[in-house]
């Protein structure tokens, strides 16, 4: 696992910024006590879109690292798949971003879900290695024992003031 480059110049100093989608409007159906709402792509996207980038004061959504079309959820089969796209192919933050997404999902989704977080194919130099690390439960657990790494992840997940 790689930590953030402390003090080093930003790898991608001037990223392209995208528009944030607004709050999901509340429908009448959602306010009805009786009808169940299934967990859908937008709901998962809403969980991860506000995660902060470790380098920039921007969210993953604003950097287009996560997009709603790259989120797939199947409520009945309890599976979630999220693809994320690092801003540049050599981004050393890729693992950290993936870890943040994964931790956010672990904290926010019911236990029944099996989650798969990986890099959008063909967008990162060491895509395979990063995917492998993110899929390895033990490594993820070990990473969260590291208090320095946990601090960075928590900062990414804290609500922006």
């Amino acid at each position, binding site marked *: 696992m790689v930590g953030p480059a402390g003090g080093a110049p930003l790898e991608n100093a*001037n990223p392209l910024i995208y528009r944030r989608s607004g709050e999901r409007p*509340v429908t009448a159906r*959602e*306010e009805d*006590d009786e009808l*169940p*709402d299934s*967990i859908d792509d937008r*709901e998962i996207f*809403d*969980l991860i879109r506000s995660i902060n980038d470790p380098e920039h004061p921007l969210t993953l959504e604003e950097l287009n690292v996560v997009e709603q079309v790259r989120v797939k959820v199947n409520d009945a089969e309890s599976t979630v798949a999220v693809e994320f796209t690092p801003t540049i192919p050599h981004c050393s933050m890729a693992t950290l971003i993936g870890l943040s997404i994964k931790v*956010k999902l672990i*904290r*926010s*989704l*019911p*236990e*029944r879900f099996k989650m798969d977080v990986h890099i959008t194919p063909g967008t990162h130099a060491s895509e395979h290695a990063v995917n492998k690390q993110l899929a390895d439960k033990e490594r993820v657990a070990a990473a969260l024992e590291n*208090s*320095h790494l*946990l*601090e*960075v*992840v*928590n*900062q990414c*997940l*804290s609500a922006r003031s």
Partner: protein
Amino acid sequence: VKDGSWTVLQLVEALGFCLENTDPRTRGRGIQLLSQVLLECHSLLQEKEALHLVLFYENRLQDHHLVIPSVLQGLRALVSSSPGLAVSVLKAIFQEVHVQSLLQLDRHTVYSIITNFMGTREEELKGLGADFTFGFIQVMDGEKDPRNLLVAFQIVRDLIAKNYALGPFVEELFEVTSCYFPIDFTPPPNDPHGIQREDLILSLRAVLASTPQFAEFLLPLLIEKMDSDLQSAKLDALQTLTACCAIYGQKELQEFLPSLWSSLRREVFQTASEKVEAECLAALHALAACLSRSVLSSDAEDLLDSFLSSILQDCRHHLCEPDMKLVWPSAKLLQAAAGASLRSYHRLTHSVLPLLLEQYNKHSQSSQRRTILEMLLGFLELQQKWGHVEEDESTVLSLRAPVCSVVFSALTDPSVQLQLVGIRALTVLGSLQGWCLASPGEAGGGLRVCIAYVPPSVLFPPGSEAAMEAAGSLAPVYPKVFSGRMVPRLGEELQSGRERSLDLRSLRQRCLQALAAVSTHTSIVRETVPVLLQHLRKVQKGTAGSAQEVISVCQSLHRVALQCQQDAEGCWYFHQAVVPCVLAMAVQASTQPLLGKALLEEDVLAAMVPVISAATTHLSPELAAQSVAHVVPLFLDGEVSFLPQNSFPCSFQPFEGECLEAQRRLVALLMAFVCSLPRDVAIPQQERLLRELLALSCSCNCPFTATTAAKCFAGLLNKHPAGQQLDEILQLAVNRMEPGLAEGPRREQALTLLLWVSREPPGRGHPVPALCPSQLLGLLGDVELGPAAADGFSLLMAESPDVLHKGCHADVRIMFRQRFFTDNVPKLVQGFHGAGPDVKANYLKGLSHVLNHLPKPVLVTELPTVRAGRELLTPPALSCSDRVVQLSTLSCLQPLLLEAPQIMSLHIDTLVTKFLSLTSSPAMAVRIAALRCAHALTSLPTIVLLPYKARVIRALAKPLDDKKRLVRKEAVAARGEWFLVGSPGR
């Protein structure tokens, strides 16, 4: 010395040994003592003594450096009391003391001596000429302490402001201050002096921007700093430039204009920071304003003209480029300059507006057209700034026709986005007085075409309140177009929509809203009201007429009523046209059993109430008296002659024993009318009316009618003049209520009456209001009426929308809620403890209502009481199964958790358990509130929370899988925050 038992002379003599000692330390101590004495009692000195002492001190300035601090202090004491000798003292200081080698405090003393002299001896100091300035420059040169700098900057500002001679030292003075620019200072943490960076920036800016004499040195410096990489330096430079423009003239700026412009342009084109951009635009605005203001000498060229030319030259072509990359920065620059003065506005719009119009027609894509129209809009908005303009001066006026056709084309474009911008443009055009008034011809015609021919479905897009407002603001300008064209077309749209498809319903809805929105002029009201009333009649007759449709019409009528309240004539017209018509329709519906009953449904009647009420509240007393003479007999005697189309199959007798239930419901309309009348309007047959209402409210089986009658009764009583009659009626009411409350089939009705009469009772000390709280508290223990009594607390505390509020001239007691709260909360708590298990919930519910309606400021001041009540009741309230109680407890607890975490920490164990158990409540609202409280718990001190962290996180996993999305959202937020408790990086 203070007491006068010693003179200063004696003291000096006593100290003589010390003062003449060869050891500088001893001398220092001697002078220190003397100085301190002087500081304490300088006011007692005689002039001659002071003179001698000053001379002595001046002499001492040449002494050893250890002695100097005390000498300066002594001098400060002396100069603050006895003026004179300013010149020689200052000369001595300038000559003998090397100020910057002293300590901060002593430097401060020097500055205060100077400030003091400047305050009292201005003339003498000016006599020193430029020497004084030079001396001061030497004193402050190299100053580093922020506290002293603030004083020094103030001195420099005074030097300049009070016209001291600067002589040849302007540049030196500038150098000695400008070397601090831009200020880079971060106050140390726990700094006791509280000097902020901002203070220094502002005081330095005041110095630099205080005189045009600095211009030739300052402007190059500012240009250099604008090119700096540091954003703070850039911002400071730009703000200083803006400040300078306030005093500079053409002469100062002339030389630097090209480079200033190129720096500003580069920043706006390149910067990513909104702040820098905004400051650049402000600076450009200030520059142009400054140039427009300057007085020209006869032979000078007009710099404004050449400056604007260069702006145009650099920005114009960006507006034309096909990729439209730099259009926005260019447009913003142009608009900033154009906003500076009328002259610059003309100069720029003369060239830019035709270009934009041409570009609009050149581009065919609606997104590009939208951008161009938005820019055009920006220029048009600027025109508003100058108010009415002579016709031949304004470029905009000469371009009316093409502008109108562009707006028209935008409104008819298929792109909704473009249409919306078009509507905004239409609004701006509507507000430009010169447009419409001065030109009955082609241009006004162009705008009229827009209003008259653009279909309403485009003009009023779904969900756009702006369009309605635009039409509302245009309507008084073109009353004829609106009443002649727009209103009939809206009427047609209303008629055409026979189908019940969703689209057409929403279009009809919008037409109704639009009709209301454009009714901002009396002549238009006269057109729209008949259209609305006609539609109402049609809906009533037609089978398709749904209650929803009637309610929409009523809402529109209500809006019209509110809009013409201020205008006496319009108000009376509306009243005369609408009130009889609505009453007639309702009476007809109630007397013909076969007719559609849509008009008699509760929510329809409830929608009619505000219409009648709003049409009545602003009537003048004479007109109201006319109207009341018709309406009251209608209800009491069935006098229908004043109603239009008054042939009803059976008589209208709402208060007669045998009448139809449907007729009685119309008491709601009577209430809307009589309870909104101004207080000084006499109501005919008032006693009879009151008795009938009282009887109806106690005897009617229908809760809606009974409640309305009670409200009407209470509303009339509230305005009833005090006296014997009032007492009699009240006594009558009590006599009917008390047995009614005690037993019988209509206890609820009696309770309703009691509540309404007690809400805003007439006068003080009457039996009914005094009866209320005790009766209500007693009823809480009643198995049958308990829940209703608990809800009664909500009725007592809440604002009533239709009667008994200030808007309808009711006599409203202030501070009622506060008093009710302090009087009754202890009793409620007491009652709760004494109550049996089956009625405990009623007390909790009552308390919940009282707390929920308490104004927030009271809640804060009464927090101890609230808290006491809450803390006492929290565990039982959270265990209570009543949803209202749970919900109000939770919503009351959430702010308490955030505001008083220390107190709430004491109950952490109970709170955690209860919140977690309520997250599985069957009611969604309760689950959400419980999760919010669980979230709010995280603001308690970490040390308190840590023992619960694992348990809460485990328990909150379950609501993550809730069937409702809104619950899951709160669960995610709460659980995420609990994960951060005591974790690094929080």
